[in-house]
């Protein structure tokens, strides 16, 4: 509970219409896309301007109130989970596109601008904003910056961090600073580079300058059907070894194909492993590269390979892929979605081990992954109504992450650590590594009020409880689909 005086200060900062304290309204903010973890905040504020945001964080700094920023609440690791003693800062009212500079391929937006709206704004001028998380029709740039969001096309185009040039940030002390620069290589430490992906623990960004990219002349998508994941994996390695860098390379296993087919009917071939390869660029180059890609798929035993013929068919192919998580609900009443990364060549080995681990527990694991960069999204299927099965599923999903680390990989490729994987971060990094990160954290946030109790392992907790995945309200409503 916040005192009446503090609430008055917050009201002065954002106006009466920008402050929410009613319990039933606060419940809207109790979770993000990881809906298993819930906590009702003491208040929600909705600033309209940077000045209001600064005033709000000033109140938090003076009274030592924890805060967490929130865009659309689509995050999958509990990063926007509120602290019940703290406030949520919603960016729903900071949605202006501030400046568009096509000659220099830059755009400046407020943190609450929706990812897809950036691309929409620059499409008439032949450009797009490259990072494309599957929730891009609803998720905000501010949230993308916090999580360093990826997407299927980051294989070629890079992640959010490669596209953020400059940030206006309110520090947890209430000071306003500018990190990075619209030009490359501004003198000083690369604070923008550290801020992106810091999951809200270093302050709150109010606006950012992004790089936009020229739309490619041609795009082609290939669907190739294989008899095993391992064969599809080898095709991926061969494509990379042939010096081809596709825009995206995705693999789905039989279970994932069935789920996607049932959900959106993308007309995928029925097979053990489906490989989607998108190649883009100058038309003549795309034709030649795609010819090579098809040859390599056939050499690895693809028994069907066809190009999506039209723009419409291409959209449908991607819709099926992006719907895979939500569609898993058709296979099982409950499931956990994970986000491990492994070196690409370990793919067949790790998947075999995952299958063995799953078989030992009696649970099914469905696999969807960004094969080009070794980012696995295993979906552990289970039924909560069977006593003990949820614990088994959680344990299995954590052991899969540990397996990724054991093979030289990472516990998260794009979903973030958040609340969900704090303990796993301690498995991936040693104490001195984490201590060094803490030095940065303490430089930005000496009072530990900016999204506290996230990312870093908490020694006082011995075990880690991960959340089961349940569809976000936006997802069940069909507004968004998640990776």
């Amino acid at each position, binding site marked *: 509970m916040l005192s009446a005086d503090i609430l008055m200060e917050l009201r002065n900062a954002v106006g009466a219409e920008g402050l929410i304290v009613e319990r039933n309204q606060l419940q809207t903010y109790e979770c993000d896309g990881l809906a298993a973890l819930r906590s009702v905040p003491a208040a929600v504020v909705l600033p309209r301007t940077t000045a209001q945001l600064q005033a709000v964080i000033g109140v938090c700094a003076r009274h030592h109130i924890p805060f967490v920023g929130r865009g659309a609440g689509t995050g999958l690791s509990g990063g926007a989970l509120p602290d019940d003693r703290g406030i949520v800062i919603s960016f729903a009212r900071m949605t202006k596109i501030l400046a568009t500079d096509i000659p220099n391929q830059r755009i400046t937006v407020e943190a609450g601008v929706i990812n897809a709206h950036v691309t929409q704004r620059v499409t008439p001028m032949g450009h797009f904003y490259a990072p494309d998380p599957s929730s891009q029709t609803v998720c905000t740039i501010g949230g993308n910056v916090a999580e360093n969001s990826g997407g299927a096309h980051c294989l070629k185009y890079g992640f959010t961090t490669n596209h953020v040039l400059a940030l206006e940030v309110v520090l947890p002390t209430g000071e306003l600073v500018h990190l990075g620069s619209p030009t490359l290589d501004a003198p000083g430490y690369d604070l923008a580079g*550290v801020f992106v992906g810091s999951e809200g623990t270093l302050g709150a960004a109010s606006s950012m300058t992004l790089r936009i990219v020229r739309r490619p002349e041609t795009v082609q998508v290939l669907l190739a059907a294989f008899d095993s994941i391992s064969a599809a994996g080898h095709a991926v390695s061969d494509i990379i070894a042939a010096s081809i860098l596709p825009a995206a390379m995705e693999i789905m296993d039989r279970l994932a194909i069935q789920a996607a087919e049932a959900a959106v009917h993308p007309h995928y071939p029925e097979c053990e492993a489906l490989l989607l390869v998108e190649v883009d660029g100058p038309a003549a180059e795309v034709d030649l590269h795609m010819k090579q890609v098809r040859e390599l798929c056939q050499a690895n035993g693809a028994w069907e390979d066809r190009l999506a013929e039209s723009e419409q068919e291409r959209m449908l192919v991607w819709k099926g892929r992006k719907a895979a998580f939500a569609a898993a609900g058709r296979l099982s009443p409950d499931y956990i979605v994970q986000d491990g990364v492994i070196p690409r060549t370990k793919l067949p080995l790790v998947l075999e081990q995952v299958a063995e681990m799953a078989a030992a527990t009696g649970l099914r694991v469905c696999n969807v992954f960004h094969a080009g960069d070794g980012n696995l999204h295993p979906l552990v299927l289970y039924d909560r109504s069977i006593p003990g099965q949820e614990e088994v599923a959680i344990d299995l999903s954590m052991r899969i992450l540990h397996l990724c680390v054991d093979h030289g990989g990472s516990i998260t490729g794009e979903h973030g650590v958040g609340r969900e994987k704090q303990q796993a971060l301690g498995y991936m990094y040693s104490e001195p590594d984490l*201590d060094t990160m803490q030095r940065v954290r303490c430089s930005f946030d000496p009072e530990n009020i900016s999204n506290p109790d996230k990312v870093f392992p908490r020694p006082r907790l011995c075990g880690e409880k991960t959340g089961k995945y349940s569809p976000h309200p936006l997802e069940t409503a069909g507004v968004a689909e998640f990776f």
Partner: protein
Amino acid sequence: MLDMSGALAAIVGPEYVRGLGGAVAVAPGNTEEIAAVLRLAQENHLAVVECGGGTKQGWGYPVAPALVLEMHRLSTLREHTWQDMTCTVEAGCTWAAMQSGLAQHGQFVAVDPLWPDRATVGGIVATNDSGALRQRYGGLRDLIIGMTIVLADGTIAHTGGKVVKNVAGYDLHKLMIGAFGTLGVVTSVNFRLHSIPRFMQSFTVSAKSVEPVGRVMLAMLHAQLSTVAIQLRGGVDGFDLDIQLASLPEVLATQAGALEMLAQSEGLRLRAAADEVWNARQGQLSADVVCKGTMLPSEIARFAARVRGLSGESVTQAGGIMIAGFPAAAAGQLPQLRRELEEASGSWMVLKQPAETKLDCWGTLPDSLPLMREIKRRFDPERILNPGRFLGGI
């Protein structure tokens, strides 16, 4: 008084400790020895300068070291998992040695820095050098996926990892890039690799005045071409735009035609360029005063002309990173040029100048400077690592 040489010899062996002017030079053989040397330095408040090939030691404000940490014994390309297109290389390895190792599998770190034969990975990272290839592949911050670093108190920390896609924890390695060694000593770096393009072609478009060349450059940045490198050179004879394409041979022929049309639309002629044009930047570094400017792409032509007007020469690469050389007589004009650049969202760093010139190296300090100082304080509280070399006295 402490027998510094003796204490260092106990860590690295006597053959790797020597006097160097008024300082002691020490050449550790591994990360653990570096940690022990730094602990010793911190306990004794000794200013430490890290040194690789020594090619850029003059950049930033000068430091009078008590200890010179020589990195040449950490020179191994430790791992090249070519199937995964990643590598781990020690910081004292020269850029060229690393690239020749990677080339055995047709791969490279897609950066073309200054003096690759002598400059080391660590020094290139510390100064955030890049080159014309940045147009296609991005800079070091886009290609480094992990690091091992040693902090001033001897803490050995690993950051990032060996996979390209990884959002676990903070990207500490980005903090080390361009930090001029003021936050820690980088001992090894993990890179994301690319395939060396098999078919490349370079072209040049030249003109007496900058305007038509500048317009062709902007058009090229927006064209559907397989561009890997681009640079604008400004010198006594006028302005030259170099562009390098990489694709399949059939495609290159078509794109060369498209380039020709672009040039002709400004009444200019496209001609094949020699590979040496891509080393042109190194020529500027012998001037009396050398500066690095950053600017938006649309400002490149204007500032290239400004530099020429001050009797300087410049090479601007990758959409807005300029290296410019001037005669000493032009130094007085440079603060005004810096103001103009800063007003246009750019920056102007003085890399090299005669001792008597005394130009400010770094320019207007950013509003995030207090934050940078706080990070420095927590990483290096005794200020032993390159003290005073960086902006704002860091």
